[in-house]
């Protein structure tokens, strides 16, 4: 157990694993996302109430889903940083934070554009939308705090604390549609019940969620590799890797 744990903490070991996984993540991710989106845009039936504007769901749900998952992953990595001082955990947080920011922005943007024809307004200050906006600010805060502290270890710990405090926002986003009266519709997917939409709608949605997850995996691996190279450039293995690729 400790051996695996130790290995997982080794940047060199991770670098090799990531190189092997990344082509799969990229090909499967782009493939699933494309199938899900084309199916959703052109072949899924139109919604009897919302018409064709509901087709935004095939990117809105994946981005919103992943924005929150990425935050939970980052907060878990933050906990690992605080408790075990594992290098890779902090590398993950740094690599993924900008991706999370973009995903949260996309979820808010697609939600606003979807809201206009459906609710008649771009924005309302209701629980779901506001808590999602707070998530955007949390991502921004994490990036800003990380950049503001020049000492790498200190920055990692400060960011980890901010991440853990911000976790309180995640259940608020999740349950906001059940706890408060909101314009936002309730969750499409739950673990306990079958989706209320027909299969021709939720299967492409599920595919695009999976596709974006895999693409996120690819981005995380790539960006973590970059961060590892930057941090470990004095080590022998990085030197060998860089000079071997000179070709």
């Amino acid at each position, binding site marked *: 157990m400790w051996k695996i744990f130790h290995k997982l903490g080794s940047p060199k070991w991770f670098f090799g694993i990531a190189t092997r996984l990344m082509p799969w993540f990229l090909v499967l991710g782009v493939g699933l996302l494309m199938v899900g*989106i084309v199916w959703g*845009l052109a*072949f899924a039936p139109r919604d009897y109430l919302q018409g*064709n504007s509901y087709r935004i769901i095939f*990117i809105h749900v994946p981005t919103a889903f992943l924005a929150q998952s990425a935050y939970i992953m980052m907060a878990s990595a933050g906990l690992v940083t605080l408790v075990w001082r594992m290098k890779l955990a902090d590398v993950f947080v740094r690599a993924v934070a900008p991706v999370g920011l973009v995903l949260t*922005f996309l979820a808010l943007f*697609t939600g606003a554009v979807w809201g206009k024809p459906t609710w008649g307004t771009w924005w309302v200050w209701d629980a779901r939308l506001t808590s999602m906006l707070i998530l955007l600010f949390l991502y921004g805060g994490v990036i800003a705090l990380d950049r503001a502290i020049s000492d790498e270890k200190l920055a990692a710990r400060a960011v980890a604390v901010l991440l853990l405090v911000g976790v309180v926002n995640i259940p608020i986003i999740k349950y906001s549609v059940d706890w408060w009266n909101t314009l936002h519709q309730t969750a499409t997917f739950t673990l306990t019940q079958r989706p209320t939409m027909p299969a021709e709608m939720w299967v492409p949605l599920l595919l695009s969620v999976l596709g974006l997850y895999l693409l996120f995996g690819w981005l995380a691996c790539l960006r973590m590799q*970059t961060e590892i190279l930057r941090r470990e450039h004095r080590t022998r293995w990085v030197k060998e890797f*860089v*000079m071997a690729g000179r070709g």
Partner: protein
Amino acid sequence: MEFDSFSAFIAMGGHGPYVWACYGVFFVLLSAVMIWSVQSQKAVIEACRRVYETQGAESSGKVSHASATFKRVNVSND
């Protein structure tokens, strides 16, 4: 196919601008993040290589060294 014609597909029953704006922004931002990430990795590898090559040149004696202990720091201008 849910639509009768290509123009009906583009129009999305009047919701075309909303749907296509979302998908447009989604693809632009997602590809921007992907391209940016690939390029920053290339930039880091290139920067490392330059550092190693200068170090290699210094240690093999191609760069003349003064015997003074004040080591000059090479700052790249680009």
